[in-house]
């Protein structure tokens, strides 16, 4: 059974403690919404799970998945940046990520699922902000990884885009994958559970007497 666990997680960036005493468990088919005010560390938490940041304390463990890969190597990460090259076409961009992320699904199919099929031949330079977001999200479909870490995925998406995102997320959950989403505003789907950052950290800090 797929399960992602975090225990006593703390994150320090630029000498400042961003969050501490974070704990959660997410199972396959579940979605965890990470909420909290700006600066609470939502992005940091996702990056930490992705392996892009080292935790100051605690650990992240994954059960029921391939043991030879790290958590990050079994995760998709969609952050604030869209990771595409403007001079390459939409299709070339996605084909590149398919090869790098070890994907097995068709590029055209993934582009169709996010509604960029008609623009496949265009240099990515010409995409609008919403279309760039869709291109980022198409990465999720071109390589199968059980963990999805999405940082404000619906930003720049219109209503149709958010619906599409919800469907994509639903399909992933139905397939047994797990999902962590950090969102400021509306979520594309109802989460299974919620993790509120900011409040936990402030309380912990108060209990330590701001030492």
């Amino acid at each position, binding site marked *: 059974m797929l399960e992602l666990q975090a225990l006593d997680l*703390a994150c*320090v*960036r*630029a*000498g*400042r*403690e961003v969050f*501490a005493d974070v704990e959660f468990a997410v199972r396959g088919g579940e979605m965890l919404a990470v909420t909290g005010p700006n600066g609470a560390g939502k992005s940091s938490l996702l990056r930490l799970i992705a392996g892009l940041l080292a935790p*100051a*304390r605690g650990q992240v463990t994954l059960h029921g998945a391939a043991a030879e890969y790290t958590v990050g190597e079994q995760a998709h990460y969609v952050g604030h940046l869209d990771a595409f090259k403007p001079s390459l076409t939409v299709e070339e961009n996605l084909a590149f990520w398919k090869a790098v992320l070890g994907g097995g699904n068709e590029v055209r199919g993934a582009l169709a699922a996010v509604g960029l099929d008609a623009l496949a031949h265009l240099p990515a330079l010409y995409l609008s902000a919403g279309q760039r977001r869709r291109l980022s999200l198409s990465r999720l479909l071109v390589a199968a990884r059980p963990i999805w870490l999405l940082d404000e995925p619906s930003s720049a998406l219109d209503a149709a885009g958010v619906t599409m995102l919800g469907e994509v997320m639903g399909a992933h959950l139905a397939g047994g994958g797990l999902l962590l989403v950090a969102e400021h505003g509306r979520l594309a789907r109802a989460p299974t559970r919620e993790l509120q950052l900011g409040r936990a950290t402030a309380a912990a800090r108060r209990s*330590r007497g*701001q*030492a």
Partner: protein
Amino acid sequence: MTLIALANPSRFHALAARVLPWLAGATFVAFVVAGVAASYAPDDYQQGATVKIMFIHVPAAWLGIFAWVLMSAAALGTLVWRHPLADVAAKAAAPIGAAFTLMCLLTGSLWGRPMWGTYWVWDARLTSVLILFLMYLGVIALWRTIEDPARAARAAAVLTLVGFINIPIIKFSVDWWNTLHQGASVLRLGGSTIHVSMLIPLIAMLVAFTFLFITLHLAAMRNEILRRRLRTMMMLQADAAA
């Protein structure tokens, strides 16, 4: 290491505060002893009294290299164990090592002038030291440019270790280059081998300078810990107001 848990460096800070006055005293005594020994050393038959610049030049060279070795050991502490004191030790050592290296260059230049007729002739040893000095400047620049202290420590650690591997390569290359271009007529700094009457004052000076280095390094580490504490306090102040 969170900004709260500065316990280890605090203990070090207190320990250093106690040890420092003794070290400073020992340094002073060592210099007095070495100075007396140096004044009794005979003049060189060829160079006269200027040969005594060696008593500053050689220890400075030795400490310039030693500081980089120390930084490399600290770099391992940072990369392998992520020990916060390692960061502090490395950062404190860099400017001191650079200063000793510069002192070596200046004294070497002054020492060579009577022999060479000019202040710089790209002598093999001094040129290697010049490159070492440039590498120190690079590490210091890296420390100052990266704002996050933990990231700066990590980057400086990698650079220090790469530099450590490169120092023998650079020395070999510069020596080779020097023999290629100057051939037999090289006027080497230091001339003939060192006579035993010079050796004892030289070792005494070496000891004295090493004490000086340790004293300066400890003091610099204390300053760095204080600096980090100040940074922590300012950040807490900002957080409290938020």
